[in-house]
């Protein structure tokens, strides 16, 4: 059996104060209108644009630490982070996408312990904190003894988000399309923001788009411009959230085998 010192295993990935992506080319080879894009730790940025506009590609550039050597020609610069490109390790990003699921066969508790252990974190409190946070995001509470494999889609998504916020050591968070997860999106974003990492969310969901204080507009593979969410938009957001809640309620009722009342309370 190999004997290994734990210090060797989880090299601390330093926090990054901010990440900056220097512009490259769009799909037709033209320079991008936006010369550079920065996201600070604890800030979230929505990445918006039609299908095929290059949102996922932008996240890839960050994940691969682009150095003018990806298809877009962009370059990633981080401040207050590792100076060189870390060849070793799981990379600099924690990524959450529609396809991810748990494949492990274990209880939530065992799983969180294993993860916390290899991150060298104080285990008891962090496992509780993570579970607590996850339970703020989903309807049905997750219990420590539950098997990962019986969690609902929303529950696993909630657990993954809480785990990224509290246990994962990747200094940047990338989220690619999680709209249909059935979790409290605003809380999810605020839990992730509290973990003090730059967060990028590629999305087609207007609520997620407006929840972030800023959004990057993509078109034909190029970064177009950054728009700050205006006070008017924040008001509209409240309205959209009410509509969303309304829709969710109707969905829950119908799903539960109930019927919709003729007169639902007005929005």
């Amino acid at each position, binding site marked *: 059996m190999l004997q*290994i010192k734990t210090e060797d295993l989880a090299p601390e990935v330093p926090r990054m104060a901010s990440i900056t992506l220097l512009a490259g080319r769009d799909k037709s080879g033209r320079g991008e209108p936006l010369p550079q894009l920065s996201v600070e730790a604890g800030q979230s940025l929505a990445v918006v644009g039609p299908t095929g506009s290059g949102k996922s590609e932008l996240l890839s550039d960050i994940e691969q630490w682009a150095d003018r050597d990806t298809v877009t020609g962009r370059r990633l610069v981080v401040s207050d982070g590792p100076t060189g490109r870390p060849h*070793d390790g799981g990379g600099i990003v924690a990524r959450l996408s529609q396809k991810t699921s748990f*494949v492990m066969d274990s209880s939530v508790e065992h799983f969180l312990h294993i993860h916390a252990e290899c991150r060298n974190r104080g285990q008891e409190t962090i496992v509780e904190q993570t579970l607590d946070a996850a339970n703020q995001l989903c309807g049905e509470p997750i219990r420590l003894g539950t098997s990962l494999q019986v969690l609902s889609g929303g529950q696993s998504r909630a657990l993954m988000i809480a785990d990224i916020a509290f246990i994962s050591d990747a200094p940047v968070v990338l989220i690619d399309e999680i709209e249909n997860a059935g979790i409290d999106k605003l809380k999810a974003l605020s839990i992730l923001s509290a973990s003090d990492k730059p967060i990028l969310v590629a999305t087609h969901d207007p609520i997620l788009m407006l929840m972030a204080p800023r959004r990057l507009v993509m078109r034909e593979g190029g970064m177009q411009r950054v728009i700050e969410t205006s006070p008017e938009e924040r008001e509209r957001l409240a309205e959209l959230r009410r509509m969303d809640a309304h829709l969710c309620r109707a969905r829950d009722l119908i799903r539960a085998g109930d019927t919709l009342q003729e007169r639902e309370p007005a929005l």
Partner: protein
Amino acid sequence: MKVITIAGTPSSGKTSVLLHTLNLFKAEGIKTAAVKFDALATQDHDLYQRRLGIPAIRGLSDYVCPDHYYVSNLEEVLAWGHEQGAALLVIETAGLCFRCAPHINGVPAVTVIDNLSGLGAPEKMGPALKLADVVAITKGDLVSQAEKEVFLHRVRQVNQTARAFHCNGLTGNGVLALKRMIDQWPEVPSLTGLKLRYSMPASVCSYCTGEIRVGRNFQTGNVVKIHVANQN
């Protein structure tokens, strides 16, 4: 010519990772060639030819021990690579038992393992993982971030010095890391006289020479017996 050996469990994504990586070299106008060693069947050579338009061949060990077959044909394969005018020759191996490793001292060694193989997989994989210079971990698109991190940790417990990284064999996301490493690697002028990183098994029992019957009476040569007593 640069040479790399690439090993990994069946269907872990070796070919997928190589296709994306070699494609990056192709885009730079660098000539590559691929060899696939396997036991009974493979279509990988065909994939390399069709998807990348590069020269590719296969070697099937058939009734010979795959590991021995592989090491016995390395010089031939290197000569073939030279004939193709390749600047980079990749040698993909499969069908080898994981008692062995195809990796050679002085030749950059890549091992591919996938996130779906279970948290116990790294420990079980043996020298192919333990002695690799680079470990590419695939299929991270299908598992949670947490499981990716735990899996990587387990890989590091087995091999502390390798550069381990996640990549996606389907989209190619992440293979840039491998490409950048290959860029830094030196050429391998000759394989003759180089040593395997791990010796191959001393297999000189009756089954090596074609015996197929089960039973003590048919076993001669180097036969090792299981210790059934006192195991509990």
